[in-house]
């Protein structure tokens, strides 16, 4: 009975390991901010641990730079599966302003399978809380891709016309 009670109560208590992969420290400060009594993240059973071997989830901040790339991979492999990866901040989600430079991999998702993206530069502590609540199933996802059109003007018309012209070229050759 105690075991079932423990399973029920600790099923969603996620211990996180925080990994800085070349961030400017802004996102790290916000991650520490959600551990303070004001945004008390420990009420969801989330605890910051020092070793990846104790962790269930990984909070990654920063675009993965070339020197930290093997270390990030090792830290990821040290986490016992099942594991979650949160990419926090613009650098971790898409590479930030350095997505194209020579010593940056350009986002965590090019290195590791990422489960949740939390954009922001840095992410607001509420935004990180929202992402964690999304992972725990407390809230619904709000972001959705937006498509805007000034007028209905399908792009395939051009491809179709091009294909038609190419076909006509062949007919002209046959003539």
């Amino acid at each position, binding site marked *: 009975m105690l075991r079932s009670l423990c399973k029920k109560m600790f099923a969603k208590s996620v211990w996180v390991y925080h990994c800085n992969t070349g961030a400017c420290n802004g996102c790290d400060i916000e991650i520490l901010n959600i551990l303070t009594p004001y945004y008390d993240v420990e009420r969801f059973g989330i605890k910051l641990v020092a070793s990846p071997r104790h962790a269930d989830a990984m909070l990654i901040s920063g675009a993965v730079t070339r020197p930290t790339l093997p270390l990030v991979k090792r830290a990821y492999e040290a986490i016992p599966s099942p594991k979650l990866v949160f990419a926090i901040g613009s650098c971790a989600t898409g590479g930030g302003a350095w997505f194209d430079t020579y010593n940056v991999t350009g986002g965590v998702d090019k290195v590791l399978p990422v489960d949740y993206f939390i954009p922001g530069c840095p992410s607001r502590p509420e*935004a990180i809380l929202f992402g964690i*609540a999304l992972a725990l199933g407390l809230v619904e996802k709000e972001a959705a*891709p937006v498509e805007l059109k000034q007028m209905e003007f399908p792009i395939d018309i051009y491809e179709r016309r091009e294909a038609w012209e190419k076909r006509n070229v062949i007919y002209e050759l046959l003539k």
Partner: protein
Amino acid sequence: MWLTSKIKQLMLVAKPGVVTLDYPLQPAPAPQTFRGQPTWDHHKCIGCGGCANHCPARCILTRDVCQELRVMLYDGTRCTYCGRCADVCPEDAIKMSNTFQTASDDKDDVTTRMELFMMTCQRCGRCYEMENSNAIDRLDLKGFRYDNLEQRALLRKSSETFAPDLLAETEGYQRPRR
């Protein structure tokens, strides 16, 4: 005396009460001055590409599919929310909203794709003028542009008239490797 110190501590704690924000259960809206996800008004946008030129993270991409149609893609994953696009927009089509709840499990959830109808000039028959012969001034990338939307890559190429060969060339773009 540890007991008196504990009682003192309890008194101290009881004074402010509970300070924890009950955030995911109760909404906590950001202040009005907060710069969150930028929003586009596609009725106002004239497709000048000024936001794409001034974005420090190069997250606004422009691809001219044909002479009349320009596709603009905002890739919010690497946006730094600096607000320069909203500053530079001549028509005030971009507004910085104060939404921050953009966490998702899919990268494409924070993108905005806009298809703009571009009219050619009735007088000269062109969309743009490319008078700058200076290479640094040409970095402003006037004219027709062919960024790769699938790779989310900005290509520093532009042409005065619409060039279908450049469009086909940039279709299978690969980031240069070491």
